[in-house]
């Protein structure tokens, strides 16, 4: 038995003529922190979307804890349009909806924050607990589940506490400053009790100082919740410091992978993504 928690096998995602993800294979191991980087439009977010079931891939398969959770091959009009590889390799079709995948233990945050804007921070997190609640709708309506309800609320408070949001728990999500909204998104994702957490640009819009704090924080939650973290990020400080391994995408294709030092010095990565670092900045 391998210790991989997530494995993408030859994933291709094509929108009409645009091949956003091209024959991508990668693996994330239990308890690792892995980063996915690459130029804008390289297909990183799309890869996350495929993993979380927002899109069904055009071709390829995904394994979560060695179970096949997604598998697809070109169909309909895509048969003609398909420009990727490994055509014919896959012949089963498994499409799970995002909620089913979350239930399996994969949670995510969004590149463009998507909180429940009009609800309080507390409600935002509490809602994410709904999935694991056992009460059916009648017993919940008739308040026969107060024990469960009570634990849900307790756990929510605890999560808010961990993320430093206790003070603002009764404020509307939309009125929180950006940084706290990002934290709230993570809290909400954690409330679904995931084993694998996908973070899409968690440090976007934060200053270097705040980004630095995020490093420690991600380490913390990994150990506290026994998580695996798979992250997209453009802040190289954060990525290089925190990642156990890094994958680099360009035009949907994997162009490099390995430990931070290897990637950092890979010429293709420098040309396509990192650029020449100006002095003083790293």
């Amino acid at each position, binding site marked *: 038995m391998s210790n991989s928690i997530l494995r993408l096998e030859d994933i291709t995602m094509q929108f009409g003529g645009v091949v956003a993800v091209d024959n991508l294979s990668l693996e994330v191991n239990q308890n690792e922190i892995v980063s996915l980087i690459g130029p804008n439009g390289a297909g990183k977010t799309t890869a996350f979307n495929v993993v*979380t079931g*927002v899109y069904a891939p055009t071709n390829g398969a995904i394994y979560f804890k060695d179970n096949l959770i997604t598998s697809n091959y070109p169909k309909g009009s895509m048969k003609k349009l398909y420009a990727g590889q490994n055509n014919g390799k896959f012949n089963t079709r498994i499409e799970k*909806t*995002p*909620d*089913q995948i*979350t*239930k399996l233990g994969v*949670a*995510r945050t*969004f590149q463009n924050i*998507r*909180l*429940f*804007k*009009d*609800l309080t921070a507390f*409600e935002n997190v*509490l*809602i*994410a*607990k*709904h*999935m*694991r*609640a056992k*009460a059916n*709708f009648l017993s*919940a*309506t*008739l*308040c026969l*589940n107060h024990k469960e*309800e009570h634990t*849900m609320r307790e756990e929510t408070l605890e999560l808010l506490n961990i993320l430093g949001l206790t003070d603002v728990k009764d404020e509307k999500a939309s009125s929180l400053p950006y940084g706290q909204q990002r934290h709230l998104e993570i809290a*909400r*994702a954690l*409330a*679904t009790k995931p084993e694998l957490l996908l973070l899409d640009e968690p440090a976007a819009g934060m200053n270097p100082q705040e980004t630095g704090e995020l490093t420690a924080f991600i380490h913390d939650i990994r150990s506290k919740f026994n998580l695996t973290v798979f992250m997209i990020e453009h802040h190289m400080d954060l990525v290089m410091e925190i990642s156990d391994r890094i994958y680099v995408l360009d035009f949907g294709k994997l162009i490099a992978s390995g430990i931070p030092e290897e990637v950092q010095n890979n010429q293709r990565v420098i040309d396509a993504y990192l650029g020449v670092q100006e002095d003083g900045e790293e």
Partner: protein
Amino acid sequence: MKNSKKITYSIILAVIILAFLFFLETNKANYGMAYTVLMKGAILAVVAVSMNLVTGFTGLFSLGQAGFMAIGAYITAIFLIPTDTIQDVYYISGVSPAIMNFKNLLDSTPGWLQVINPYIALMTGGLAAALFAALIGIPVLRLKSDYLAIATLGFSEIMRAIISSPQLDTITNGSYGLKKIHGFSSIIQTFTIAAVCITFMVLLIRSTYGRAFKAIREDDTAAEAMGINLFKHKQLSFVVGSFFSGVSGGMLAMFMRSIDSKTFSVSLTYDILLIVVIGGIGSVTGSVISALLVTVSKEWWLRFFDNPLYIGSFQVPFFRTGFRMVVFSIILLAVVLFYQRGLMGKSEFSWEKIGKSVSGLKGFILKKTSKGGSNHVK
């Protein structure tokens, strides 16, 4: 405020309302207008809250209420038309043997069952509406916002066309409608049923399922990513909402005592939507208050606009028939423009708020009187 205190207040309020209703019931003859209008308001409150559940809390813009109400109303009506007059009701095409058999079967049930017959009728009406909702929900709930609205509106119109079609004359009495429907025994009964329905929906909204509904309303993609099965929850909200629309349709039939397909046209849905929005989308208390207010003002308080008004011997211009509805439309417009988020917004009634405003008022009065006092000294 302490919980126990809140409960005490609530009980006191409930007792006051009950006493008031009891008073109305015993003095029905003198307060007929209040009696009728409040009864209708209570019925509309049920359907308004049910629409709010679906549209306001789950974000599913549904305009099918009239259709679901029609289902509930017709089923309730068939239950509640006395068997001896049923032939008179279906005076054109006669009554279908199936209904006749069913009525005879009902009449042969034990007495206690017949006593709760109206409740069974309403339940059945609600369940039938819910069943229809479940069926059409499967294809239709995939649609987004206005497309969903128009599809449900379409369903409601289809329902109406089916009900009024000559082919169903022996069941729905087609164009002629159903009459002689057994009504409510008292206004207390109406209010009790309404209260039970609304309480159930409030509890649902407050439960973990209700929170999931709100999540879907706020952002369905995020909700799905949080493990909420969109279809299951949308369907649940839609079915429960339709159940209560059906029940309120049945109640409306009991209130009107005679119904026909025209009653359940699109404009009924618009009227309900109006109540919901005026009250505040996402506020149950808002819907209830607005249902009572809108009904009472439209059908009672504003009526004087329809009659010529004299001040001395001077006849005030504009006051004649039809003016009431003009005024009503203008008031409506003004309310929407003034209260953009409805009377209650998204907030609910709470004793805290009452407490706050009471103490605010007290402070205000105290200030006034103290000012007045100083004036006095001068």
